């Protein structure tokens, strides 16, 4: 079973290129012994990649297995493609009454609720039925009728999910389906990074299909992990380069999951307020302290106008760094919020 229920667009391979400094000298306690190892793992409908400095391949393999076990565990928690996941259990039962869940799931729901409230609904995990109506659940794009969308309003809306201190979740409107796609990979990355920290890993980077990455520490003799943000397609040139250390970056765009009808491209990232795919946004990148936050925020700033995004960021994520590309490929506009790295202006009129 695959994780595809994403309300967010995952980046094509190469969209977000990760450039690593390959050196056998490290800055940790035994720097000369550290080497870079790379492992990959399929989960959540994408490929996770772990770049890890370790003393030998055996130690790297043991850490990788733990990290990817944790990713798999979170997938089993959050997958809306697996009937036995905790999220599916909530989807199946919370419309009929309160469902007791565990603290971790409650944390996930509370963080989702936080970003929904902060963005006034631009971010919303109750878009499960909406994603299906638009055919994005299993890549079968279609345009729903206005009547369908009208009916779906009854089963869409973050305010219809009630959480309480007794760790229960209840839907006030039966039929709601949670879709973790806009935040789940970030939540998984944060959980996996906790494993890396517990294992006292000094330098590693975990990438969830390149749409969300977390940079832990820095490669030897480097100040951080180098991330390349490419220009809008079809350009293959660099839009900006940023160095990350102990922080996360998430990106979103529409290049991979979409469908075209009568020459119009419909993006899989929904604006839950209009019940329709977002228009006018090309790509966004967001740096935030946690992967959960950067993942959710990349949805927020993709859905909101740049002006709305700046207001939301000032109020709820003042330490974030954001690069937004709007418009279309012929007339792209770039907007930034605390994005300190140079941006190649040839890609956009800022």
């Amino acid at each position, binding site marked *: 079973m695959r994780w595809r229920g994403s309300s967010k667009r995952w980046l094509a391979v190469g969209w977000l290129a990760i450039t690593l400094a390959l050196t056998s000298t490290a800055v940790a306690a035994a720097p000369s012994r550290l080497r870079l190892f790379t492992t990959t793992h399929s989960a959540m409908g994408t490929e996770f990649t772990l770049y890890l400095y370790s003393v030998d391949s055996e130690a790297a393999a*043991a850490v990788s297995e733990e990290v990817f076990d944790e990713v798999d565990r979170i997938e089993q928690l959050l997958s809306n493609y697996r009937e036995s996941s905790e999220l599916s259990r909530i989807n199946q039962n919370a419309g009929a009454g309160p469902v*007791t*869940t565990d*603290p971790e799931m409650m944390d996930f729901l509370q963080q989702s609720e936080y970003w929904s409230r902060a963005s006034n609904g631009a971010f919303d995990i109750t878009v499960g039925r909406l994603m299906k109506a638009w055919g994005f659940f299993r890549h079968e794009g279609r345009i729903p009728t206005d009547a369908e969308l009208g009916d779906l309003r009854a089963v869409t809306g973050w305010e219809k999910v009630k959480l309480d201190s007794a760790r229960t979740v209840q839907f006030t409107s039966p039929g709601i389906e949670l879709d973790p796609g806009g935040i789940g990979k970030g939540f998984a990355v944060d959980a996996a990074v906790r494993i890396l920290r*517990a294992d*006292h890993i000094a330098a590693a980077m975990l990438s969830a299909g390149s749409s969300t990455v977390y940079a832990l520490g820095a490669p030897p003799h480097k100040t951080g992990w180098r991330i390349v943000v490419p220009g809008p397609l079809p350009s293959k040139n660099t839009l900006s380069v940023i160095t990350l250390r102990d922080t996360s970056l998430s990106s979103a765009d529409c290049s991979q999951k979409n469908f075209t009808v009568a020459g119009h491209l419909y993006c899989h990232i929904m604006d839950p307020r209009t019940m329709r795919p977002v228009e006018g946004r090309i790509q966004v990148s967001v740096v935030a302290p946690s992967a959960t936050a950067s993942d959710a925020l990349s949805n927020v700033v993709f859905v909101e106008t740049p002006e709305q995004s700046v207001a939301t960021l000032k109020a709820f994520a003042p330490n974030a760094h954001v690069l937004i590309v709007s418009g279309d490929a012929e007339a792209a506009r770039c907007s930034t919020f605390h994005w300190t790295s140079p941006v190649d202006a040839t890609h956009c009129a800022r």
Partner: protein
Amino acid sequence: MNRRDFLQSVSAAALASTTIARAAAPAVKPVRLGVIGAGSRGQENIRQFLRVPGVSVAAICDIYPPRYEQMNRLVGKEVPHTADHKELLARNDIDAVLIASPVACHAEHVIAAAKTGRPIYGEKALGFTVEDNQNILDAVTSNKVLFQIGHEYRYASWAQEAIRRVHAGEIGTPTHAYAYWHRNGDWRRSVPSPDPDGKLEHLINWRLYRESSGGLGTELGSHHIDMANWVFGEQPESVIGTNSICRYHDGRTVGDNVQTVFSYSQGRRLVFSSITDNAKVGCEFWIYGTGGSVQITIEDATIYYEKNSSNTPTADQTVSKTVVERGVVTGASYSTKGEMPYRGPGEKIVGAHSEDPTLAAVRSFIEAVRGEHSIFADVHCGFRAAVACSVAHDAVFAENKMLIPKAVQLTAAGV
């Protein structure tokens, strides 16, 4: 409305409101857990227990201090902790005990918990050695405590339905079970450094060492042995097996692959294989019967029926020449048709629900603690699988056929 109607109306309203109140906030008897062993499996069990209304964690016991903070995070509050299981069992705020320590510690921990009279949810395998298993069985039965073993497949709705249909004869007579648990990974947990004397290595990677682990045959195979016991209605009589280290020459003393054949009455067999360098078949349990096959996985179950092999005589067609007139064409006789695997779809077995098997298992345990029903995967079920594991653990090194003892004075209970 007269007084009688009014009273009836009020009563109906009161009943309705009571029903609504119960639905909104079900009054469940709280169950406070004490946990012995808070490693990866213990944590997963706790996660599932906390999804059952009314369950809380009162205290934990583990000898590895990093577990304390991990459990605090998992439970969402600071949980009292100790490294001494006797100290945990001496607490007066524990209603039931979860034991998820390494298998070699099960006897000490389960027997101590049984003596307190509290219900126990014990991870598999029941015990490490044959003697351990007997001692645990004795302690649980003599102290008359509720005990559920962590064979959660028994609570997977699709497994229950599949085996119900097998027992109903849908695949004829089940004669063989083939079980695979194939992975591609070293089964090793990372160890913090420095660890100069290797103590942390043996503490964290206890599954890799023969003195503390039954290896793949116990840690993974016990589930499949229990399922075969369930299918055949008995425990195996003997086992032959082998193991080796094929890929991971890292100091471990249990095999990184194991193959065992368990013999049941009437010549029935369970064949178990576990390897750690190829995950093609993953984890699957096949039941072969004279009329069909059933595949059970961690997520679903599928039934396949044998090809129709009817040999009813057919009459010659009168509209064309008979075989006597046209003759029989001679040629090579070999046909692969009968040897090729069936590649068509099977019938997916639909269970009553899709709940995670571990959640279903721990929920059932809590219901049993509350007196709502008896325990399905009880201590006898645990014994029958674990005693086979204990013997198989020796058999794969000796590579001799070994007999599997039955429980002494085993009380009547369904397998």
